[in-house]
């Protein structure tokens, strides 16, 4: 009970701040928190990245294995995106099989990778109908201070750029990098008291009635959207979010390119 009262208090606090155009940590409504991206952090993984957005921290690891293609795409590799909301990362996460929140996180990130055709799956076919590379993208959340989707999407793309195909381990030859054709960037926004906020913190997510992720490609097209929670959003508001998102995505992409160059 005590905890629930604290939740209410925090929600009111965030709400009142936002109505005055402010945020808990002092940044502007449309600003991201500081982003840190480090790649190649896990030697045992074929590709990996550690992403921090403020206090939110995510590690993404890419592993490759051999398997059969799907019957309807016999000449294409397979992507499997999985997210673990391990209880280490947040008091509200519980051990156990994936729940609706971790499934949603994985599926939204997956949608961005897939919709943008970030990976050339045709290159991952070894023997048509028989043997293809399976690309496991594992999102491991370490600290949940809000906006896991944007962090995980940055991490997934960075890990893929960073991935070495383990041909040798399986007695194969071939090029050893993935052909990354697109670098989708997710921008998540929430609505609190009529205002749109970019990159919500954990407390802001709790204070928001609704939210929206828009995933943008390099040419400004969209390749994935997801609305969150049970609040409704007006048409105008959605259009505004798409415009704000497109701008933020550009900025995020520059940030990403800079850090990839240094960190990769």
């Amino acid at each position, binding site marked *: 009970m005590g905890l629930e009262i604290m939740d209410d208090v925090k929600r009111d606090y965030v709400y009142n701040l936002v109505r005055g155009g402010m945020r808990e940590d002092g940044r502007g409504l449309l600003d991201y928190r500081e982003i840190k991206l480090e790649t190649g952090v896990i030697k045992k993984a074929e590709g990996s990245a550690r992403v921090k957005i403020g206090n939110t921290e995510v590690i993404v690891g890419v592993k490759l294995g051999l398997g059969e293609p799907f019957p309807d795409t016999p000449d*294409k590799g397979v992507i499997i995106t999985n997210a673990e909301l391990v209880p280490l990362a947040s008091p509200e996460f519980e051990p156990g099989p994936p729940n609706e929140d971790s*499934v949603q996180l994985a*599926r939204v990130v997956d949608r961005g990778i897939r919709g943008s055709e970030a990976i050339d799956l045709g290159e991952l076919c070894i023997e048509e109908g028989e043997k293809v590379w399976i690309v496991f993208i594992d999102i491991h959340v370490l600290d949940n201070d809000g906006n896991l989707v944007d962090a995980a999407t940055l991490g997934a793309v960075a890990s893929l750029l960073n991935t070495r195909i383990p041909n040798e381990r399986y007695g194969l030859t071939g090029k050893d990098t993935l052909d990354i054709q697109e670098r989708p960037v997710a921008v998540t926004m929430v609505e609190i008291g009529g205002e749109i906020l970019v990159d919500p913190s954990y407390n802001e997510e709790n204070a928001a009635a609704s939210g929206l992720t828009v995933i943008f490609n390099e040419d400004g097209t969209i390749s994935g959207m997801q*609305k969150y929670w*049970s609040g*409704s959003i007006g*048409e105008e508001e959605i259009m505004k979010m798409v415009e704000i998102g497109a701008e933020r995505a550009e900025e995020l992409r520059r940030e990403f390119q800079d850090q990839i160059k240094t960190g990769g």
Partner: protein
Amino acid sequence: MKEEGIELIKDGKRLDGRGFDELRPIKIEVGVLKRADGSCYFEMGDNKVIAAVYGPREMHPRHAQDAKMAVLKYRYNMAPFSVEDRKRPGPDRRSVEISKISREALEPVILKEYYPKTEIDVYVEILQSDAGTRTAGINAASVALADAGIPMRDLVSSVAVGKIDGEVVLDLNAVEDNNGEADMPIAMIVRRNVITSLQMDGRMTKDEFKKGLKLAMNACRQIYELQRTALIERYSEM
């Protein structure tokens, strides 16, 4: 993944003869189940779905109760025979996500505060699937909730738009969905003109998105009228 050589649009018409902004035929029956508190059978083209509502009823386990309002639950489930390749019974990742999205689409209209400590259960069974089952399920559930007498601010209506052969079109069927470039299901409260669910898969420009959203919102208005009519018929019969 597009099959080679398939053409989804010919002479300005889609493979099933529809125009770009045309819905598939819709059939709604209210109160089709005896044991459920409310129910609705909904057909949209070759989709056949049925929704049942139970509650408000006592919630178990107790520690999951909300002292201030009812808890809404939603279970989207595909019958094993509803798809080409038999679906193994039980929830998978797709159905877990759809259940969440659908619950959130309906929650804004339900007066949950009327029934603290209870649960309201919405069960949606997909008997036959032909793309768009999540939207058909939301439409059916919305009517079933009304049939169950759950106090609601309004109905929720739902439909998808998509992009095929470069064109933004309404309400994709399975062939279009499998060979199309994008799919975007939405749900809306028609009388308040607000969106309660929005997802997008595939690739669209911002302008296509805007065009698609308008198309979908217009179609929701048509669906809303059909939902209303079905409910009025049901109650005039009684």
